[in-house]
């Protein structure tokens, strides 16, 4: 993976330079955006609800036992907004959308469709990469906002029905509002924007460098997902550190 970092950075830079083409490619951005939404929304709902629930289930009873009942909403809310929603959604999108991007572009590369674009003087970065990266950069932060709300709801439901906690809905959200600020949600959304760029660039790069036949495409898909996840985790730490420094 690290051998390709230079190529990935170069592809990202070329995509940035292609930004003036964005308006021209808006139709493709819409198409990709709705495809991402369609493919992920139901899964985001399920995943987020249960993540919220499991965080409440894990942290709620020990906190209640130690008389920190009014901290449950805040802990669950903070964990979801700052960490779990951005990272889990990014991993979900890497698996669900990044893999599809790598497979589609990889197949186009193997079957000379990208060469055909070049012979028509159509830049593959403008035609293929830019719309996909923009769509994912637009969709993931929105999915994360959605995920945060569903995750909080999941946490609230579990905190309410669990006999060791029995924290009413209203009290859960009042506690949550005490600890979680809008800045925390914005921090999570900002992180998810960076993760979206990582998934988009890594997946498109893997697709564009695919060689061989179906086995090569399969290899590219695996690499796209694995490399994206590794980079998401590394960048999660770096971005969290940076955000702490900027807004302690």
């Amino acid at each position, binding site marked *: 993976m690290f051998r390709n970092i230079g190529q990935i950075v170069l592809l990202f830079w070329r995509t940035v330079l292609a930004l003036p083409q964005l308006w021209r490619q808006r139709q493709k951005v819409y198409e990709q955006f709705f495809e991402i939404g369609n493919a992920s929304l139901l899964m985001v709902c399920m995943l987020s609800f249960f993540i919220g629930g499991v965080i409440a289930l894990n942290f709620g009873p020990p906190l209640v036992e130690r008389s920190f009942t009014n901290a449950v909403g805040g802990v669950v809310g903070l964990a979801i907004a700052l960490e779990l929603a951005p990272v889990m959604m990014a991993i979900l999108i890497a698996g669900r959308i990044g893999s599809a991007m790598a497979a589609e572009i990889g197949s186009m590369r193997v*079957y*000379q*469709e990208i*060469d*055909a*674009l*070049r*012979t*028509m*003087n159509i830049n593959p970065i403008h035609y293929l990469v830019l719309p996909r990266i923009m769509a994912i950069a637009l969709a993931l932060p929105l999915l994360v906002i959605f995920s945060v709300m569903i995750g909080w709801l999941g946490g609230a439901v579990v905190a309410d029905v669990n006999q060791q906690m029995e924290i009413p809905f209203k009290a859960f959200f009042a506690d949550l509002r005490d600890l979680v600020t809008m800045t925390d949600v914005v921090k999570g959304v900002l992180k998810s924007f960076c993760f979206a760029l990582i998934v988009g660039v890594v997946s498109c790069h893997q697709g564009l460098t695919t060689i061989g036949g179906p086995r090569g495409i399969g290899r590219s898909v695996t690499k796209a997902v694995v490399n994206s996840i590794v980079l998401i985790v590394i960048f999660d730490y770096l971005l969290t550190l940076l955000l702490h420094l900027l807004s302690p």
Partner: protein
Amino acid sequence: MNGTNDSSAGVSLVVRGLYKTFGRQKVLNGIDLEVQPGEIFVIMGPSGSGKSVLLKHLIGLERPDAGEVLINGQSIETPEIAAKYRMALVFQSGALLNSLTVGENVGLYLTEHRLKPPAEIARIVAEKLEDVGLQDAVHKMPSELSGGMKKRVAIARALVIEPQLILYDEPTSELDPLSSVVIGNEILDLKRRTRVTSLVVSHDRDLAFGVADRIAVIAEGAILTIGTPEEVKRFNHPLVQEFLRADFKRER
């Protein structure tokens, strides 16, 4: 390729000292050739002789280790060449975009470069598909087409560019004899109508001798001979004669 040059005349193509190596394998070993404007030039040779790699160099998809390709005296690697001259490559597989319909594939160049309004693009697409006898396939997906139909769509897609240089990579491979004749006639007809310079890479002897003004025979990355079809037939070189006379019945 960007449609800024209004001249419809074919362009000249000059290849000088072209070398290309992949790993340890020498694929092109000093290729020199000249194609005149409006000429149909066929490059023949056995499989693996470097024909398709040469073709990719001629349209700038590959960069040579040494040597140069000149279009009307200008290097193919100069950035403005794509805007100055219209060139098209008909891929061996057709290389149609599988996610687009036949009509969208054929009109892709015009759509992406915004050269015409949508209604005009639809008219041109219908016209070019009619030229290759596929007017009913406009809404079909590439996966619904046979190999021959895909190649004809690829030719229609190239025609939309109104190319001054058109390159064909094995245009009759995997085709039945009737479809091969249709493709051969397309190549001749296009030259008659547009005076385009055509370069055909093929190991199909019937096609080569049927359409070529001149033929080059290539083996192991080097050109063995260049001449008119009659001159090539008479060229006394064991590899050339073996290639031209290879016959299943004779071998038995």
